[in-house]
């Protein structure tokens, strides 16, 4: 994955984030709200702005829920994290770190969804994934793995300055 334009989301607030920012080729030190995608570049988002603003949240959250339901993955019994593209080293490592129980449940969901897609059917309404069940169990692990990869890259590229003795 190309990590040159990597920005970590505001929730991972560590020294490392500031270090990356300061080595930014554009020389900017402003911490924008960016969403990290493990694939290539990141894109700007208003996620936190809406989440923190009660007024915006009240009117935009139902729209967001409607969009999520329309996507169709819940009708196959899947969770959002089941459909993250896994053919890259970051997500592979994150999946390796998943507990055996979670791995088994994920595999069952994916197998069932595959069978449903072959037969061009969807589950009956009672069996659709409920919004409370649609937990992001994998995304925090992916973020941690991406953080570790970025940390390694930044240490590889580090410029050591000898302390004035």
């Amino acid at each position, binding site marked *: 994955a190309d990590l040159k334009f990597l920005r970590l989301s505001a929730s991972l607030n560590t020294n490392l984030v500031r270090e990356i920012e300061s080595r930014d080729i554009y020389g900017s030190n402003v911490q924008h709200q960016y969403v990290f995608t493990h694939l290539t570049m990141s894109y700007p988002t208003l996620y936190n702005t809406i989440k923190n603003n009660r007024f915006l949240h009240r009117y935009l959250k139902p729209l967001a829920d409607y969009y999520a339901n329309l996507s169709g993955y819940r009708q196959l019994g899947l969770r959002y994290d089941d459909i993250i593209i896994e053919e890259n080293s970051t997500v592979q490592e994150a999946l*390796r*770190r998943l*507990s055996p129980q979670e791995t088994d449940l994920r595999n069952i969901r994916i197998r069932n969804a595959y069978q449903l897609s072959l037969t061009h059917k969807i589950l009956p309404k009672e069996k659709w994934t409920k919004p409370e069940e649609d937990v992001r169990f994998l995304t925090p692990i992916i973020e941690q793995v991406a953080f*570790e990869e970025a*940390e*390694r890259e930044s*240490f590889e590229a*580090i410029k*050591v300055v000898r302390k004035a003795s």
Partner: protein
Amino acid sequence: MLRAHRLSSKLGGILSRKYANVAASPVVVTKSKTGVAVISVEDNTPASSVALVVKAGPRAETTDSAGAAHFLKNFAFKNTSARTAFRTTREAELLGGVLSANLTRESLIISAEFLREDLPYFMELLSDIIFKTSYHQHEFSDVKKKVLFERNAMKVFPDVVALDTAHSVAFRHGLGNSLFANDSTKVKSSQDVSEFASRVYTAPNITIVGTSVDHQELLNTTDKLFQNIDHSVPPTPIASKYYGGEARIAADGISHYVLAFAGAPAGTLDYATLQVLRSLIDGEKHTKWGEGVNALAQVVNKFEGTQGTAFNVGYSDAGLFGVYVSGIATSVYQVLRAAVEELKHASAGVPKEKFEQALAKARNNVAASYETRSSKTEIFGSQVLLTGKVISPAEAVAQFDRVKIEDVKNAAIKVLQCKPTAIAVGDINSLPYSDALSL
């Protein structure tokens, strides 16, 4: 000399310069406001070291947590909430520090060696191990691989196997718990390790030993970093009891034999007496092409490829004294018989000249044991942790002034009266049982 075997793992670079110490350096012991004892030894070297000596050796394990000490030692320097394991390693390398974790039977020693000015960083690193280690489950599989690797590496050294088995046969629980986690360990997840850690990482269980550091700075840093330490007093361990017994382990290659008896706790007069007895019957030769001074050394020399050493290990409330022999099975038998003969001669009476020789050698061994930074850390740390006071090298050597010939004779009589611990590793069809040794 056969020291109690330890596990150690080192990260980073190695210091290459050594400075000769002219006089015995003063040892300062203070109890920090947080309840943790802080010891510093002034060595006047440009490189300092700080170590956490924790009462978290296999002795602190219960039946539910057998093997946890070995796992905990390998969890040192893993991910904490402050920095990842990778970052810890890289930053220590960039600063030129050496990080290591060692396990002895009664303590876990987590140490860092660094340049003087980096004390705050490495103290923070060490305190993060206590408070902020994450114990992730995915790290547990890596730790488990390392534990298995160390255990399999141990099997390549039959003398380590023999000594470990000698302890488990002689003491059963407590001091008898193996240094290495074995297949029957109850530790199956990082949660088990984390529970063991929260039980042992308490203020009465921890000592901080610094060498070549400013004592006041070390004390202030400890006060600041260990503020939130748990103060619960751990349960007192069961008093050690010596049982004795036999164990025979078949193995390929040359044979090894450990014949051990009840020893004495470290630091006591009995221990010093046994040190003299050990030097008396030792079969090592200390010059390259000499024949060795003692009678046992003469016997060892007659058989090619044979080694016979006497050892004396002391812990807080018990010890092990004995002889370690290696070679082909028939030579081992001959050397063992000679060693038992030596003990019987000592129990009949020790000639004055031999006594003086043994006394000088024992004094030298004890003084030499305070030589390196790591042994000083281990010795002073465990002394304060287990007994509350420090015995300086000068005091330790001066203890030998109180050892008399009669004491050595009585020690030899006592040794011969106790039930032996006989561990045979190698060609067990030919190696003798302990009752064949006319003890």
